[in-house]
């Protein structure tokens, strides 16, 4: 159910609210993206600089093959699960804080 239209001098329409809103969500997104990109861009570098290490055999796979072909997927699920949990709780906090200010 949408709430009734708030007046325009409401806290929601202030510059400060939008700024905090965007900054907090962007910070979360960037943190998760950074974790992902370290793995994603790190692997080719590891292959480039340490080919012998990455060619070590693990269950018949080379280490590099195991990481890219199998382990990568669960790693990404963990990042996205973390992101969704945090992002939904961020939204709840925002709704709550707006409701508190409006009450006052």
């Amino acid at each position, binding site marked *: 159910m949408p709430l*009734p*239209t708030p007046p325009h001098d409401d806290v929601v*329409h202030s510059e400060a609210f939008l700024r905090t*809103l965007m900054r907090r969500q962007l910070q979360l*997104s960037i943190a998760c993206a950074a974790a992902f990109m370290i793995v994603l861009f790190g692997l080719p570098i590891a292959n480039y600089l340490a080919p012998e290490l*990455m060619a070590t055999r693990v269950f018949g*796979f080379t280490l590099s093959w195991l990481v*890219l072909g199998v382990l*990568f997927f669960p790693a990404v699920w963990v990042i996205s699960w973390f992101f*969704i949990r945090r992002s939904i709780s961020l939204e709840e906090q925002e709704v709550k804080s707006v409701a508190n200010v409006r009450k006052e």
Partner: protein
Amino acid sequence: MSALLPLSASLAFLGGVDPWIFGFSAITVVVTIWMGFRSAKTSKTASDFFVAGRSVSVGWNASAISGEYLSAASFMGIAGMVMSSGYDALWYPVCYACGYLFLLLFIAGPLRRFGAYTIPDFAEGRFDSPLFRKIAVCFVLFIGFFYTMPQMKGAGTTLAYIFPGIPYWAGVAIVGAVITLNVALGGMKGITLVQAFQYWMKMFAISVPVFVLMAVYGGYGAHVGANRTAAESLAEPAAIVQTIDTPRATLPATAPSDVSWVSPFGPLTTKAAKAAGLSAEETKPYSLLYTYSLIIALVCGTAGLPHILVRFYTNPDGVAAKRTTMWVMILIGVFYVFPPVFGVLGRNLLPELYAATGAKGTDKIVLELPRIINERYGIWGSVLSGIACAGAFAAFMSTFSGLLVSMTGALAHDVYGRILKPHATAEERMRMFKIAAVVIGAMSVVLGSQVEQLQINFMVGQAFAIAAASYFPLLFMSVWWRGMTMKGAATGMLGGGLAALACTTVINLSDLKIIDLGVFWRTNPLIRILCEQPAIWTVPLAIVLMIVVSKATRTTVPGDVRMKMLVLHAPEKLGLKQEYIQEHSAGAGH
């Protein structure tokens, strides 16, 4: 069973067609068409046709998005490319799956909150510019056609495998006609159900043959292990590291060597530098560049595929959009473990495919490989191969339907409904939707029949490269940067997108030998790599253009940008969307 055998034997005699393979594929096609027709009865309104009434549940929607996303490239192309190029091709499945993370982190939630039918709707709404809508529509069509070509190659390859007698182009034409009919009758609501069904169909069809093959011929790791790395071939030139049950047949001369196949920086990424006559050490930096550019194209491209993005509008709200993305990542992540297994096993068990090209080459490994079980367990190989064919049908049928819906939507909803005839009645729009579907279906068939010699996965990569340089910067920047102006967005999207489009077109024309650039590529390997995988420079180009032009035209930032940003980012519970629409319709009255 005994009554069936003479019948199936006579059928096999008629056309060299394996009855089991034919049977399973026919069932998939019939079920798909039946589901399309059935839901055609229930989808009546224009909203039903375009975004399925916006009321699809998370589970259904996630299966449907995954079903639509797992295309011929995922089902057949990855296996074919892993077999032909080895390790480097693994980047494709990984980035196809992980690109969704970017979509989730930066785009999914805000885009859903903004609420619009299509990406062109978003482009217009965010910048209040009907002109920008037209530019955005062009890219739906560009990317769409680049993405349909590999689907058509998948269709042609599969039909040529099932019916050894028919030519490649005939397979393309038959599949194109069937799907076009289905879309014209059912619209998108039909598609949601069909797509969800097809995800599970594909998952079943890729995993079951893999498990059986591994049980019979040895595991994934053992088959990777049969390829010796550089250090191992130096240490013990004769010994095989891991033994597999069946000794490998001799590899044809066209197959890459063990070392280059199992190690990073193999044939896929070093081709250009090798052709220029550089030594192994000298090619490595080129190879690294190629890998990075490929990663950028695939990750950013996933976040900008128009036919996937349109699906987010079928979520009830932004939270559901995020949950859906999470489930999509799990569903497709599990799927993507399997196709490379076919490529790995295929290298050891069916190396003769290396010697063939076009529809008979490595792209059909997923279909052909299960059939070798026939040698040991009677017809079971044919049954499994039939299941794999059914999965391939599900793959190119679902993706092509999805593309057709989004391209047809662009033509009917955007070009016709908004530009040519803004006051068209709902009935006229529905009729236009059907006409547009037929026109685009026919064009796809014509384009698809031309690309038999190109690899499926490679072509999909190109569609991703164009999406990465056009839609991804547009969405990312317009969602997170308030200073963006229409001119900035349009310049960036056009600059990046057209540069990528030009590069990929040149590469395709030269690979199909329509124009001869062989000598030029040999002398300029760097240019060849930057054209073949342009994302590493086109994505930054698009973003820089957006920033520079937006700064220069600062005065034209939309007046209500703060309100727009609030709608994009504030939780739905605050009810801002309602308010925005009221304000907007009031504004239009002035």
